[in-house]
């Protein structure tokens, strides 16, 4: 496969064609934060926290590093002001949903989210879909899924499958960046199994 040369945060990177920016950055030790990414799962591009700024020609724009494939001569900036501002707002938005999630709190602190300008809501879940995709892609059980659309979207265990599969598996629990999944499971177990 062809090799592609690009620049990430001033460092020259040579990787195989088809590599994502996130993977390419890792090879030169550039850390990009992620929440919905997992190396065992298909990239999803939903949390957008891995947004980085790319420059091709005179145009700069933000792209999600976990899904954007490398291009010859691309100049990538993972720490620009625009990137920091975007990540800060995204974290602020996520923190309003899941106020006590350690992983998000830590990232929020790192990006200087100092004030909570949005009303808190106790969803506990940021809908990163790690659990849903793990169950579908790795376990191939589809015991947990998304329901609803737009702001009504939520994650739900499917009682018929979950009551059979989940008690002995629970493999998705440790992937969850918040504590929402465990609570969700206990609730589902109590109410529907």
């Amino acid at each position, binding site marked *: 496969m062809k090799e592609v040369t690009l620049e990430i945060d001033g460092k020259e990177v040579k990787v195989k064609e088809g590599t994502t920016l996130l993977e390419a950055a890792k090879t030169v030790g550039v850390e990009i934060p992620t929440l919905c990414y997992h190396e065992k799962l298909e990239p999803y591009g939903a949390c*957008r926290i891995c947004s980085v700024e790319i420059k091709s020609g005179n145009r700069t724009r933000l792209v999600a590093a976990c899904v954007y494939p490398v291009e010859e001569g691309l100049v990538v900036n993972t720490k620009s002001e625009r990137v920091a501002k975007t990540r800060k707002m995204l974290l602020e*938005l996520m923190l309003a949903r899941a106020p006590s999630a350690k992983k998000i709190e830590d990232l929020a602190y790192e990006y200087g989210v100092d004030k909570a*300008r949005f009303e808190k809501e106790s969803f506990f879940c940021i809908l990163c879909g790690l659990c849903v995709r793990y169950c579908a892609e790795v376990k191939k059980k589809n015991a947990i899924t998304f329901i609803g659309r737009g*702001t009504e*979207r939520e994650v739900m265990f499917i009682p018929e499958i979950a009551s059979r599969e989940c008690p002995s598996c629970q493999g998705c629990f440790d992937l969850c960046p918040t504590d929402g999944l465990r609570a969700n499971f206990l609730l589902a177990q109590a109410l529907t199994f």
Partner: protein
Amino acid sequence: MPRLSSVNELEELRQDILAKRDPQKPCIAICAGTGCLALGCDKVITAFREEVKKQGLEGKVDIRETGCPGFCENGTVVTIYPEGIFYIKVTPEDVTEILSQTIIEKKVIDRLLYVDPTTNEKIIHEKDVPFYKYQKRILIGNNSKLDPKSLDDYIALGGYGALAKALFHMTPEQVLEEVKKSNLRGRGGGGFPTGRKWESVRDAPGEPKYVIVNCDEGDPGAFMNRALMEGNPHSVLEGLIIGAYAMGSHEGFIYVRAEYPLAVDNVRLAIKQAEEHGLLGENILGSGFDFKIEVHQGAGAFVSGESSALMTAIEGRVGEPRPKYIHTSEKGIWDKPSDLNNVETWANIPFIINKGVSWFNSIGTDRSKGTKIFALVGKVNNTGLVEMPLGATLRDIIYKIGGGIPGGKKFKAVQTGGPSGGCIPEAYLDFPIDFDELTKLGSMMGSGGMIVMDEDTCVVDVARYFLNVLRDESCGKCVPCREGIRQMLRIFNRITEGKGEEGDIELLEEISEVMRDSSLCALGQTAPNPVLTTLEYFRDEYEAHIREKRCPAGVCKALISYYIDPNKCQACMICLRDCPAGAIEGGKNLIHVINQEKCTKCGTCLEVCPPRFDAVRRMSGEPIPVPIPQEERVISRKEKQ
């Protein structure tokens, strides 16, 4: 009907059809589109059929159930050919008279004519009605000339001639070159050059290649795709087959939303007819080219109109967008090269092939060629579908064709491009409308929705309305779109409830910027447009809501009050009786007072107060005067003295 296996046979069929038709025979064309159907056109059609029998006119007059001619507000619309006499708001009760007077006696029935609201003149012929007169009806014009359920009608008008020309006189490369040179741009919203899209699909490695019609029209108030799909489905099919030939595709999909049942029926029938006639399927017209089409019904998601979401839906999964860093033209349905174009884009293709590139390039502006159908709705006298050359001004559309704003009100803004578009104020009424100009103004062409607003519209409320639409229509996958909309809506609710704070405007702008920059698909990236354009052009209204707790248009209920002026009130009891909340106190000869605690701010009192008294006032941002003491409220009337 035997399959047509050559161009000659198609031409012979056309000649046969034409030979059997007498252009001088009276024909009553009745709109059978969804708009008129809602107004009862089915009953009008039945009445005509029965009455023709009763009056013994069978064989002497044709009745044609047509597609939507666009003037929906005046349905049921009926046009009598060959004269082109145009009747509006026809009901079954008018049918006997139309047959006896207009068809037999050749007399025009005055009361069914359209009256020009600006001149009060009655207009007899369709072509003279201002709504039609100033349009350039290339795509939609045939809607009233054919029955969408009749392939014969389409062929009589030269239908499938462009397909025959492409298959037998052009190579696929020549067809592609022709579309590229035409500079046709995607009519679904993006305005991407169609020819370039086709080329990348044609050049992309991988077989099979798919071609798709996007009829998932979902913008509030937009229905141009529906009108074409219902009214002239064969024109869309013909365009699609030509495109498939150019791109080397042998399989196509038509994605129609299930909420368009008539469009689904008509296009299914059209596919069946085309297959039976050898215009679709294997060895089309004996050319050796094979192509089949499948209809896929959408399940009512706005976001499924987004190309990657639509393709995911066709694959049988939930219609959610996926990252498009690898274009769908390379990896679309089942990761195969796929071309998706809007209904209106496809409908342009037969015209470009038939009439040529120079004809098409003679219409429109420098970078936007051809016509565009707009759905003109809202506070405008003539609502309906308007087809104009690109580059026409908003003023032309709203005033010349739309007949201006009703009730002598002032124009305030026009929202173009649906929930992802923006509000354009009066200052830009003379700007030419094309893809680039609208983008410059912070709005977009979108699918061509055009919602006109008058001075009684609150732009803050409008922006809130569109966010509300998107709150339900976002797929909810990515954080900026889902959470950004949720929080923006919170702020909007606060502002319109009079709880807005300093800093709210800046926060809205901050969220908007992040949504634009980092959302996964175009829905999220453009969702802030209504907010940003209203902030740009009407910032003072936002400030009035936040700082003065005043809604300048008098719309936001929490910020308005109704008040009865004691000096003008004649204690006539009308508002007191009509108030649905029982909030008006008073009596005969006792001046009325609104109990503000009980008032639900519905505005009924203002509506019913006789204009000669003019006693009810809507107030915003000012204190309500203290009611006058009980003893001063008694009116002693002169005549009783």
